[in-house]
């Protein structure tokens, strides 16, 4: 299977948690909806384009910035300074699986971008380090002597979570339908698995460069 692999860097980023109102807390990695939003904007998409993604990456540290934020109140719009949690020096690896034609369109879109990309908020600039196609294969766990160590923190959907791997639960937004003028989100339950965990019971996907892959939607 051939998939698209993106390597991205962000000096600072906030992937806001949906119900974090008093301080803007951030997810440790961009949720699927954020990544899909960026890909859809590269594609100039006007409706949902079917694709599946795998998100992994690391960050150096976290800090806060005190910043004015606008709020919608029932009768008015107000402004209030809030603490924004920011990740610092984020390196991301994103795998995208879709129809070949769509992957080619993403590459064309990146080549012909007319603005600097962002991921998260508009000001969270992205540096694109690599865009390439890679082959993916399934690794048979029985052929490995010591299992497979997770090198890079990654989101693993719980249906695919290897039996003895531990992680932090998140319910990530994936895509939405507008119902009565409101976005109704389809959520995906994942574990955020940090580096150092070892997979020893289940088969997994890996690309030709040796990076793990866990797609958010089943094959």
């Amino acid at each position, binding site marked *: 299977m051939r998939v698209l692999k993106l390597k991205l860097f962000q*000096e600072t980023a906030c992937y806001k948690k949906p119900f974090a109102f008093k301080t803007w807390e951030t997810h440790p990695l961009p949720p699927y909806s954020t990544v899909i939003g960026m890909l859809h904007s590269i594609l100039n998409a006007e409706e949902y384009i079917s694709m599946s993604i795998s998100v992994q990456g690391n960050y*150096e540290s976290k*800090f806060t910035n005190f910043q004015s934020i*606008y709020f919608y109140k029932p009768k008015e*719009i107000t402004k209030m300074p809030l603490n924004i949690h920011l990740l610092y*020096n984020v390196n991301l690896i994103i795998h995208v699986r879709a129809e070949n034609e769509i992957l080619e369109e993403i590459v064309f879109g990146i080549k012909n*971008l007319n*603005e600097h990309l962002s991921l998260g908020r*508009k000001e969270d600039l992205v540096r*694109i380090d690599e865009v390439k196609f890679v082959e993916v294969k399934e690794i048979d766990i029985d052929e490995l002597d010591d299992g497979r160590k997770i090198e890079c923190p990654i989101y693993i959907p719980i249906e695919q979570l290897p039996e003895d791997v531990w992680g932090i639960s998140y319910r990530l937004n994936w895509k939405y339908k507008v119902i009565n003028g409101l976005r109704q989100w389809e959520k995906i339950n994942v574990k955020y698995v940090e580096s150092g965990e070892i997979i020893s019971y289940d088969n997994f996907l890996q690309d030709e460069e040796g990076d793990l892959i866990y797609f958010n939607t089943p094959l």
Partner: protein
Amino acid sequence: MKRGLTVTIIFQANSLNYVGKIGNIIEIKKLSRNNGNTYTFASRQCLRYDIVRLGNELFNWKLGTVCKNGTIQFTKDTTIDKSEEVDLFGYMITESKSSAITRPATVRLSHAISIEPYRSDMEFLTSKGLADRIGEHPDPVNIEQHQSFYTYTVTIDLEKIGVDKKTNSDEYIVLDNKERAKRVNQLLTILKVLNRNIRGRQENLSPLFIIGGVYDIPNPFFQGRVDLLTKGGKYYINTDSIKDTLELTLFDKSIKENTYIGLVSGIFENKGEIEKILPDRVLSIEEFFKVLQNEVKRVYGV
């Protein structure tokens, strides 16, 4: 067409951005890194403020008209043809029971993050002079101080400058290319002489080192890749990360041929080494901006 301009800058300054007060200590914005050190930073919001302030002072930029209805914001008739500020930095105009009208910023800034760690330097001051006149006790205050090199990145979406959709209409406001080039070049001049007034000081944010150019692919190539090394109390630009970035190709398009460096002599010890990695394209700050501004004119065909 070349669509993206990006520069990464090093400047030197004292504390630029405070969080507020904790007791009688005035704290600077800070972040910690994996190496255990603490660094200070000036937020992008404060850089934006000073860029617009100088745009108004130097080039008579019209500051977007502001009103208060619920919140303080730009008025509805603040459009990009009337205000350079909203053309470059965008706007969000909100109204109850309808979605906000927004223009994303076409110029984006990163936080200016210190390169040297913060070592808890403090400035102590009191109001003794005034207090003595009335025989009162002075109010002492501690201010965190950090004299350091800082780095930040600017990106400009050249295609989007001077183009905006009119509110509630499918029509666009499109400024002529001469005006678009003029705005970008005024912004570049501001970056060249940028300063910030803070707690009675004026800090000079004018670049001591600057790297970047105008590229086919809008990408902040040098963000996170400009760093200093210190040896024997002297400063060196880390050329390894810059060299690797210059060798990078994205879709077979070379970054090197569009990149220039500007620097102030006598600050960094390894000017010779820097000149070797980018022959003939290591310039003075003044020349760097001249080259970049001509490049901008070429992009817009003026």
